[in-house]
């Protein structure tokens, strides 16, 4: 049923080749005369754009097929094959991956273009684009991989790139530490992923370890194993997509350049977890409990992150926490088996969050890398383009109809309600309100009121068009993306959901019109309340507040980082040093030392018998003789 399409392989290949090429160029030129930035800029954009074009080709190809037969696959080569373990380096394009493919390449290309402007004048210009291309390539491998193992390649690849890009300004220790944190925390997740894969393999992998075969054999899997696999894979997801308890790395990841935050830590990489769960929908759909756990973790993360977001002062941190919170929504969605809704939120979120980040980037760019919102203000007049686009993004994020965010979020909340997860729904609505609040808190503080730092204010201006054009394009996306999946109640037929249907295992809940209206009304109300509070507090400018009590506690993010440091990092180091300083010399090496000491002691002690008196030697002989003859007589009788 599935067709072969060789060009699938090319999609990740282009950015990867780009990465290698640019990287080599950079490595060999950076010590001597650096090449002009244009060269890098153009080279950098070739890969992503070509990938996007091919993605369109894929889309068209899939469109041409009957909904049930929408599979394109390409086996590059046998990767490794030992015993019953047989892994192909193969790629699979089905509606799900195609959707991801489209927006990843699209937004990726835009952000590359944006970066040409943003990174201008950086001495590691080339390196940056090498990493970005490498990232895009890995992300595409992740998306297109035809099985968990291939996906894992991309999975780790994007992790590596995020590490490299977070610690991009490597002279500053804190950045590198943030990078390490990201990589290590991700590795914790990856451990879960690997173990999950292993269990899955020994469960049903023997008959082929790619999605289609797994989907075919999933019914052979014992429930217990299935649950284990689901949970372990989800551990991987929590790492990559910054869910409780592994979300801590994402806020720190903002140390990287802003386009990186936009591309990797908002639009694409962090959604990999959601994508993975959706990929394994055939698995999760079978295990109620796992789904619930996912959903609850998701929604709780959403709540927690929203709380943190309300008290941040760094513009990028605000967006970072909003990202975590939105990811929470997505997991809530896939958790309640509304996979298409989750994926759709991924899709819309990509647009408006990328938009917001890039907008924030422009602001930071304009204010010479000032990130504290309490030093901004009144920028509305100075940078109108940025302002308008960002407002659009904010509205989308806050879930104001008819912006894209509204539909996708509402879809999730409705499915939660319809499947009877009232708790999740209630929290979801609450979080929606909080989202509206902190988003517009940011908008108001940054763009409205009086300028707080006049010097910076004077020089602030809209960014060059190479940066603003992508903003506008994204704004349009943020505006209309939602319409693609217009629910029936608004007279649409959920295009995206139907498009995704073949590659997902889900049954659409039918809660009836009342529930739909209830859900919509609730989220709209929540949005209104949130934005109202924000306006009254910050609408006309406000001074930097002083936090106390719960606010202070939330401002310090509940001291979670400190807690982790206490209960994990410090003990780890303590164990390490104690092994090295205490156990090694006193326990493991002690026997060896003891033996050698005993050896020398005996050796020196034995010299005593060599007294030097010949009579004594004779005496030895006689004594020995006597003892031997005694023994002899013993043995004879």
């Amino acid at each position, binding site marked *: 049923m599935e067709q072969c399409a060789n060009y699938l392989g090319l999609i990740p290949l282009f950015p990867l080749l780009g990465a290698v090429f640019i990287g080599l160029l950079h490595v060999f030129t950076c010590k001597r005369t650096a090449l002009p930035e244009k060269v890098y800029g153009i080279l950098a954009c070739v890969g992503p754009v070509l990938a996007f074009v091919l993605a369109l080709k894929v889309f068209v190809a899939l469109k041409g097929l009957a909904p049930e037969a929408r599979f394109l696959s390409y086996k590059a080569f046998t990767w490794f094959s030992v015993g019953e373990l047989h892994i192909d380096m193969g790629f699979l394009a089905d509606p799900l991956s195609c959707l991801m493919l489209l927006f990843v390449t699209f937004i990726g290309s835009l952000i590359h273009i944006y970066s040409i402007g943003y990174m201008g004048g950086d001495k590691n210009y080339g390196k940056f684009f090498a990493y970005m291309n490498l990232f895009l390539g890995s992300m595409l491998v992740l998306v297109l991989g035809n099985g968990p193992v291939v996906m894992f390649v991309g999975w780790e690849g994007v992790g590596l790139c995020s590490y490299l890009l977070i610690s991009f300004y490597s002279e500053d220790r804190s950045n590198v530490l943030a990078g390490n944190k990201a990589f290590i925390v991700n590795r914790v997740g990856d451990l879960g992923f690997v173990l999950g894969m292993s269990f899955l393999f020994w469960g049903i992998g023997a008959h082929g370890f790619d999605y289609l075969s797994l989907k075919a054999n999933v019914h052979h899997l014992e429930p217990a194993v299935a649950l284990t696999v689901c949970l372990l894979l989800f551990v991987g997801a929590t790492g990559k997509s910054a869910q409780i308890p592994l979300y801590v790395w994402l806020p720190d990841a903002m140390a990287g350049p802003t386009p990186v935050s936009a591309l990797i830590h908002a639009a694409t990489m962090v959604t990999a977890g959601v994508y993975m769960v959706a990929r394994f929908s055939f698995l999760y759909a079978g295990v109620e409990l796992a789904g619930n756990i996912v959903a609850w973790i998701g929604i709780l993360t959403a709540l927690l992150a929203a709380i943190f977001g309300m008290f941040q002062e760094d513009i990028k941190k605000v967006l970072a926490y909003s990202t975590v919170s939105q990811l929470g929504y997505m997991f809530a969605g896939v958790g309640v088996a509304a996979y298409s809704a989750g994926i759709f939120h991924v899709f819309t979120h990509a647009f408006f969050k990328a938009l917001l980040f890039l907008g924030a980037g422009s602001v930071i760019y304009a204010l010479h890398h000032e990130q504290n919102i309490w030093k901004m203000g009144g920028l509305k007049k100075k940078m109108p383009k940025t302002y308008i686009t960002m407002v659009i993004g904010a509205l989308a994020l806050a879930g104001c109809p008819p912006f894209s965010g509204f539909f996708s979020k509402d879809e999730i909340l409705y499915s939660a309600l319809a499947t009877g997860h009232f708790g999740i729904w209630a929290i979801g609505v609450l979080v929606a309100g909080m989202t509206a609040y902190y988003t517009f808190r940011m908008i108001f503080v940054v763009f409205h009121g009086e300028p707080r730092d006049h010097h910076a204010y004077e020089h602030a201006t809209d960014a060059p068009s190479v940066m603003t054009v992508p903003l506008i394009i994204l704004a349009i996306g943020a505006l209309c993306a939602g319409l693609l999946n217009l629910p029936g109640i608004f007279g649409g037929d959920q295009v995206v959901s139907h498009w995704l249907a073949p590659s997902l295992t889900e049954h659409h809940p039918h809660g009836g019109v009342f529930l739909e209206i209830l859900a919509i009304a609730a989220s709209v109300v929540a949005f209104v309340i949130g934005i109202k509070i924000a306006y009254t507090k910050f609408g006309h400018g406000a001074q930097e507040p002083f936090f106390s009590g719960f606010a202070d506690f939330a401002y310090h993010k509940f001291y979670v980082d400190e807690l982790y440091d206490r209960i994990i990092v410090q003990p780890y180091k303590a164990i390490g040093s104690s092994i090295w300083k205490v156990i090694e010399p006193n326990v493991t090496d002690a026997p060896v030392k003891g033996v050698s000491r005993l050896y020398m002691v005996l*050796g020196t002690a034995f010299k005593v018998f060599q007294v030097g008196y*010949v009579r004594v*030697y004779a005496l*030895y*002989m006689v004594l020995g003789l006597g003892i031997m003859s005694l023994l002899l007589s013993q043995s004879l009788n």
Partner: protein
Amino acid sequence: MTNDLMLLMPLIIVGAGAILLMVASTCEKLTHELAAYGSAGIFAVAFLVQLSFCIAGNVAPYTEAFNGVLVASNFSKAAGLIILACGFFTSLSSQAYFKRNNFCSPEYYSLAAFAASGMLLLTMAQELITVFIALEIMSLAIYVLVGYDRKSVISTEAVLKYLMLGAFAGAFFVMGSAFVYGAAGSTKFVKIGQYLAAHGMLHSLAMIGGAFFIMVAFLFKAAAFPFHAWVIDVYDGAAVPVTGYMATALKTAIFAVFANFLVIDGALQQQWITFLFWISVLTMFVGNLIAIGQQSLKRMLAASGIVHSGYLLIALVAIGSKNFSGSVIAFYLAAYAAGTLGIFTALSYLGGSGEARKTFDDFKGLAKARPFSAAAISIFLLSMAGIPPTAGFMGKFYIITSAINAGEITLAVLGIVSSIISMWYYLRLIIAMYFHEAEEQFDEPAISSWAPACTFVLVLCVFAISLYPITV
């Protein structure tokens, strides 16, 4: 009769040579260097003759001579070869040694030859009193050699200890053979064997006691525990070449006759297995413990000699009396002789005048000054330590194999353990030579090219022997 004399030819050559040298040394013109070359020549000729006997076809593996008093078996021939080779190298190394230490006279070499003839006789002896006489010929010559430096109180003390304890042990031997004679009515091994076959071991107390005393005497000469104490002091007191000679040739002769005595009859051998077992174990470990603490190189080598006797005793424990071919023992003796003699040869020209260099520390940094000598010494040490691909390793391998094959797994493992223990004090010298800075320049003028040449040849031997396959 002529045939018998033919069999004895090497012995006759050496003995005659000895007497000749003794006579010749009366005339002034014969310097001790000439004597050295002379004796070396004698040994060489005898060696070649012996070799021709070995490789010449249609030689019966076991021929009696003088109606069973002497026997020329492959084993005795091999032992003879080793002894003669040792004699050859010893006389050449002595020649170098006595350039530095001038207490030599031509008689020294004739005595060495006398000792060798005694040893040769010993390897062939098949009759108790012959054994005794051979033993004494050898010992008396060696006594004199040990005490050759009349000026030095050290060597005099050494000879006192050796002579006194040796005579003491000799007395035991005589007593033992007397009793055996009393029991068996003859002192020929063959007769004794027949007697034992007829009556078994436990028939007469005299036989048991006698055999026991004889074994004590052998164990004394082989420096087995608890009769080991003299070795250290005597080796230390004697001149370096003499020590080397004692450590190799004498030990070869003793173990040859010991083996011959033990295989008289299965019953006899069986009786002593348990004894020899414990004695060999104790010998190995006591030897090691003594060696660890030593600072002087000679004393360490003496102690390691004790350990190697322990290994040889393992082989003795393991020999089946049926179709006994002492190939394992012979091989091990050859390997051991090559290694030990090599070291002593090297010491004889590196030791400095009056044996100035005797402790480990005295050889620090030798590798820088005399790289080839240092390398040679290291190879000999590794061979003694039993590290492949040297002869010492193969010898150890054969011994372990024969032991395990004879079901003596415990003994084999203990032997291994002891060789682990012994590793340190062998490496110690290598470490001193290579890894420490030189405290002095070893810059005496090269005195004689003979001894270094011998060392080189012995290095070759160490590897050549290891490749020679034997039939166990």
